[in-house]
């Protein structure tokens, strides 16, 4: 008989934690290979098609970047809340509200010049997303509700509200009955970078990522967030206004997701329609965990998981693998990486008994 003893590590693992991460991702690829072979597709061929679809051409990489933009912004916001151990899984709804807010400005003031219209759309998107995020924070304080459940439920409300608008009051009369608003005026659209198909949202990501990083790392409030995220009791002891921080992180979180909603509506589809909701807000949670809440690694993980979405489209076209395969692979990666955490924070020793 062998017995495994699990003890907490005294010294955190150094570089070898990257090895654990790599092994976890490799394991998830092996498991998805098994899934592919169940459909009589050679796993190696399947994964090759996946990777080629994701990163094999300039067009593919540009597509990855386009998809990485909203994932990155949502994940950045989610990570701020996670730092405080506030489990905001409502990025999806906050994203929807942001898109709605931006669309309202674009449709109501179509005559405004770009330099005024775009900032106004951003402001409105961040405000709508931020307020949507603030509601669960207030409910948590006043009524002791669980923010996980409330943020999740509010996603459905937000998405249905978006549907209500595009099926009803905002429906474009010239859309032949399709649920969509009329196209935004050209000055309400965030342009593309040079000759690429990637929009300037990438620049927004760069700026916002830096701002959040600086905020967490170098400001007093950022420090208070880290301290309160580690121990609520110690935070109260040290006079850190915990309740106010909860509201703050939820507003920041919601505002960033709302900003993503603005970019998606303005730059990618130039209008509001139900197909704007493709689950970026949920992918963002996976990304934030994989990246351990660090803005730089969030950027990398966003790009990789965006690649998964792009690659799966290719897999679907070439090998008729259902689109759900992308979701499965995403979930597998999250599970294996979380399970790999056992090896980074604990020491396993095997003894004969």
């Amino acid at each position, binding site marked *: 008989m062998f017995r495994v003893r699990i003890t907490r590590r005294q010294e955190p693992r150094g570089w070898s934690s990257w090895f654990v991460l790599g092994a976890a991702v490799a394991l998830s690829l092996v498991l998805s290979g098994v899934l592919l072979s169940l459909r009589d597709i050679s796993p190696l061929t399947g994964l090759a098609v996946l990777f080629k679809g994701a990163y094999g051409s300039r067009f593919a990489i540009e597509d990855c970047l386009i998809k990485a933009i909203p994932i990155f912004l949502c994940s950045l916001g989610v990570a701020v809340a996670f730092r405080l151990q506030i489990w905001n899984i409502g990025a999806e709804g906050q994203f929807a509200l942001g898109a709605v807010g931006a669309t309202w400005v674009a449709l109501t003031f179509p005559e405004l010049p770009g330099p005024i219209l775009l900032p106004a759309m951003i402001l409105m998107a961040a405000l709508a997303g931020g307020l949507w995020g603030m509601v669960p924070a207030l409910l948590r304080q006043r009524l002791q509700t669980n923010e996980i459940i409330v943020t999740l439920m509010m996603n459905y409300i937000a998405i249905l509200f978006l549907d209500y608008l595009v099926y009803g009051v905002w429906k474009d009369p010239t859309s032949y009955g399709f649920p969509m608003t009329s196209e935004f005026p050209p000055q309400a659209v965030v342009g593309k970078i040079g000759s690429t198909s990637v929009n300037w949202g990438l620049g927004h990501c760069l700026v916002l990522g830096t701002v959040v990083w600086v905020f967490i790392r170098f400001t007093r409030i950022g*420090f208070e967030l*880290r301290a309160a995220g580690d121990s609520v009791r110690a935070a109260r002891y040290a006079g850190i206004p915990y309740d106010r921080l909860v509201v703050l992180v939820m507003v920041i979180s919601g505002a960033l997701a709302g900003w993503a909603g603005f970019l998606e509506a303005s730059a990618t589809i130039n209008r509001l329609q139900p197909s704007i909701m493709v689950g970026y807000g949920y992918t963002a949670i996976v990304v934030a965990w994989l990246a351990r809440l660090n803005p730089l690694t969030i950027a990398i993980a966003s790009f990789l998981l965006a690649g998964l979405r792009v690659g799966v489209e290719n897999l679907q076209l070439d090998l008729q693998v259902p689109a759900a395969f992308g979701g499965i692979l995403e979930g597998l990666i999250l599970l294996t990486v979380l399970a790999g955490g056992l090896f980074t924070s604990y020491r396993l020793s095997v003894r004969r008994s």
Partner: protein
Amino acid sequence: MSGKTPLIRLQAVSKSFGPVHANRDISLDIEEGRILALLGENGAGKSTLMSILAGQLQPDAGTIFHDGAPIELTSTDKAITAGIGMVYQHFKLVEAMTVAENIQLGHGGGMWLNWAEINDEVRELAAFYGMKVDPGARIADLSMGEKQQVEILKLLHRRSRVLIFDEPTAVLTPSEADNLFATMKLMVGQGKAIVFISHKLEEVMAIADNIVILRRGEVVDRVAAAAVASTVELAERMVGREVLLEVDRQAVEPRQIVLKVEKVAGDGLQAIDMEVRQGEILGIVGVAGNGQKPLVEMVCGLHRPPAGSIRLLGMEWRKFFADQKWDLALSYIPEDRQGLATCRNLDLVDNFLLTTRGGFVRGPWLQRRQAEEKAKRLIDEFDIRPPNPQALAWQLSGGNLQKMVLAREFYRKPRLIVAEQPTQGLDIAATEDVWRLLLEAREQAGILLVTGDLAEALALSDRIAVMFEGRIVATFAIDDREHVARIPQMMAGLEITA
């Protein structure tokens, strides 16, 4: 000690954590059909001793005998097999499961369980020991007293012969406590051995056969309960008379009032009045659990006082805590260093910044580099080990963490210090350092010292206040010999009429 072989005998058991002797040379017998009370303040080494018996900790030296034969309790399984069972203060029950399911948990057995039979067994066992527990009831629906009965049934069902109770009455109502004592009597009648850990003197007097008193990790007294005349005598034996360490203490002229507590009541407190002046140490002594904790939490702003008024540095409680300055104000050195005073996963610089961050702010920015320089200097000055500002709080030993907290809190130049068990778990050298620091701090601060260690209170305090059952029964100067001599009586709740 009787001629019979004791069920469990500890012989010269010692256990150290770094330089701290949690248990030193402890010898005691746990006998069949007897209730042994372990008495001692928090940090006296009771819980370490229990963990050794439960197989969670291995002693550094000494032997444990089981039925006269040496045994090594290297795992909790072994302790259970040896018939040793614990009733913890915080119950280890699965709330969503039934009584019988909880009792069956961890029992093994085959693939199929005969629930009817298990239910019958549990019902019989409960009836035999005078407990009214329905085997089919869900734990979540039970009262604290009933949950405790389930814990006891768990042990009885697996035929434990030694039952160790860790402050079992702390969570019970008085009538539930009476029921527990009746059950205990029944169990010893059946030949079980019971270890009863408590610091409630009356209970120990009422139920124990033998009493062992621990202080600073050592057995300082052992006595048959029948030989103790009163709770007063027990209190005297518990706090001891000798002052272990002498410190050079010069009186400082007391100046303005920094803390004034008037008629504070609620949360177990009754009409507390006291004041602390700059330049003095007011020592609050009393057996733990007599209201010290709520009082400290109110003074330190963690809980609003339900009634009465607290003024700090001349300011009303609410105003003081609404815009508390980081320096020249209040420093709270809590008993719970790991959970309250520090963040375990942050490094020493961040933990240093926890309460001093106000001093390292420019606009919205935190000047972490300056803070790191200061932290490094303090780590040197206070000899904190490891001397690495990037070390995480949980990697430090209790003593070093306490030094880190003290270094940080003194850096704030507080004008009011609330120190709660400041030397608990520290070795002698560190204790002397802490005492010296507190005495020096009187120059600029008034100090409220809450301690369970009477020697510490006597060595440091200028005045002493004795707490019992949520009241301050007396306040007097340290040179008032007559009162000082009667501290044990007052701690045991005897009215003084002198």
